[in-house]
């Protein structure tokens, strides 16, 4: 299982690549393994305002349907449209081509409540 060092993570297994006031969000390698083969990803439209910890989308796999949660508050500025036709990118490349949305962050301290890779590794070990 891969956990990338330069990313932040949530308890719900989303990852966040934070640069200035922009954040790219996806689900972790651990999450995609737990979900199994992803068959459908529902994402918000560009311009949607997100509130931290509220759901922003749905990931459907062969086994289950799960919500994905906004790790920070802000506005959606980009959505990975490739996932509409290739939901399997979430499985094959969760940190790369399987990214989900990009947020323009409005949180004043966006890192609050998020984990670094060491803390996240511990969480995965507990749940694994």
């Amino acid at each position, binding site marked *: 299982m891969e956990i990338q060092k330069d990313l932040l993570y949530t308890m719900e297994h989303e990852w966040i690549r934070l640069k200035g006031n922009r954040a790219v969000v996806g689900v972790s390698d651990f999450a995609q393994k737990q979900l199994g*083969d992803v068959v459908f990803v529902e994402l918000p439209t560009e311009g949607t305002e997100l509130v931290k910890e509220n759901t922003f989308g749905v990931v459907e796999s062969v086994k289950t349907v799960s919500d994905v949660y906004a790790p920070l508050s802000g506005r959606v500025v980009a959505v990975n449209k490739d996932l509409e036709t290739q939901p399997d990118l979430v499985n094959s490349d969760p940190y790369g081509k399987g990214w989900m949305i990009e947020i323009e962050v409005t949180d004043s301290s966006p890192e609050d409540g998020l984990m670094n890779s060491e803390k996240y590794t511990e969480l995965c070990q507990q749940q694994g």
Partner: protein
Amino acid sequence: MNKNTSSQANDSSVSVRGLVFNEPLLFEMGSPGRTAHSLPKCDVPEVELEALLPAEEIRDQIENFPELTELDVVRHFTRLSQWNFSIDTNFYPLGSCTMKYNPKINNELAALPGFAHHHPYTPEVLSQGSLQLMFELQEYLKEISGMDHVCLQPAAGAHGELAGMLMIHAYHAAKGTQRKKILLPDSAHGTNPASAALCGYSITQIPSDGRGLIDPKKLEAMMDEDTAAIMLTNPNTLGMFETDILKITEIVHKKGGLVYCDGANLNAVMGETKMGNMGIDVLHFNLHKTFSTPHGGGGPGAGPVGITNQLEPFLPVPVIEHTKGQYRLNTDRPQSIGKMKAFFGNFGILLRAYAYIRSLGPEGIKKVAQMAVLNANYIKASLTNDYHLPYSGPSLHECVFNDKHQLKNKVSTMDIAKMLIDYGFHPPTVYFPLIVKGALMIEPTETESKETIDQFIAAMKEIARRAKEDPESFHDAPSLPVVSRPDETAAARYPRLRWKPA
């Protein structure tokens, strides 16, 4: 076509042996000019179609439309019917779904011409028998549940949930203080949050405690005056009775909230206890589960909803009333949430449930719950050495194992479920409830004999042994059915929704 493979009939399987025919699609059969019947000679003047319809209303010939004889068609559908897996052919321990046997007398009564031909527009005065039957069914459901009122309209469990949640919404609206939140345990059926969301509520999850139950302390911390209701299932989806139910309902009521109980698991407790005595304000019944009406092939279902007096003004219309020896339909109810279903719900299904309740009587109803619990606990006790039991507390009518032991050999819940098909059993519910990783949820129901349950246990034990000794054999299982292991991922990712000529 029967393929002979390693996963063969043995002591633990329902003896599998036979001739199962591959069957092409109707579109792939036939020959031009064949027909199933011949029409008599036309005895009126013939008119060209073009003279009757404008050109744009006339479609082209359908390409490759199958032309078949009556025998072709009869064989085709009869063979397909033999591929079916049903409660009338096999044991079907699909957890939470309560696949009990549906007594044939129910169908016979529903087919009586007086009922079957009764048109829903027949005036009240000529519909007294049907109205009486529905009124009495409501009374029986009230008696069984301890609720003050019952409405039979909803067409399924989730529809009953929606009716209940709409009444809860109307109740708070009438008080002038609409609330925004619904609390739900993380073991809930997925329809619960959906029904609440349809009423405009947001959902907050209550994490289950180590017992698999709702922790009243956690609930107390989460319950506030913005919470319209809690939606719980009792017994819950682990088959466990919420032992703190009285505390739970008290906590919610104290803050002015209501308690919705999903009646999916009523089978386990009916006749033994009543939801009305536990502080439940709204309860739906799955007649197609608990009261033996058919539902394997898509129903139709029936999801009556029971409520307490405080919600009575909001009942769906029409309400069946019985005054001065006459049954009437009252639609003059200004606070009603409105109609939930055309006419009075799925009447044919209500009739079957009525027949079931009348056949069993109070003692029989109680015995149903007792036997359902006994059968599930017999399976649970018999398989605890073979499968991991994530929540080991007392459970009622179903038991939830998982694949923790088998995963060591890379055999998953899905593999176990598929392999079970080769032994002649329908797989249990898998990967639900969501709080159990790799869940295998087994509900035998009360209608199975000890012999059948013993065969199932033997098959499950054998599968556990094979998972250790021959895990490779699972990857292509099942091998005996006509369709063995479809690629579910590809089917979901790239669905082909209609057949086209090659």
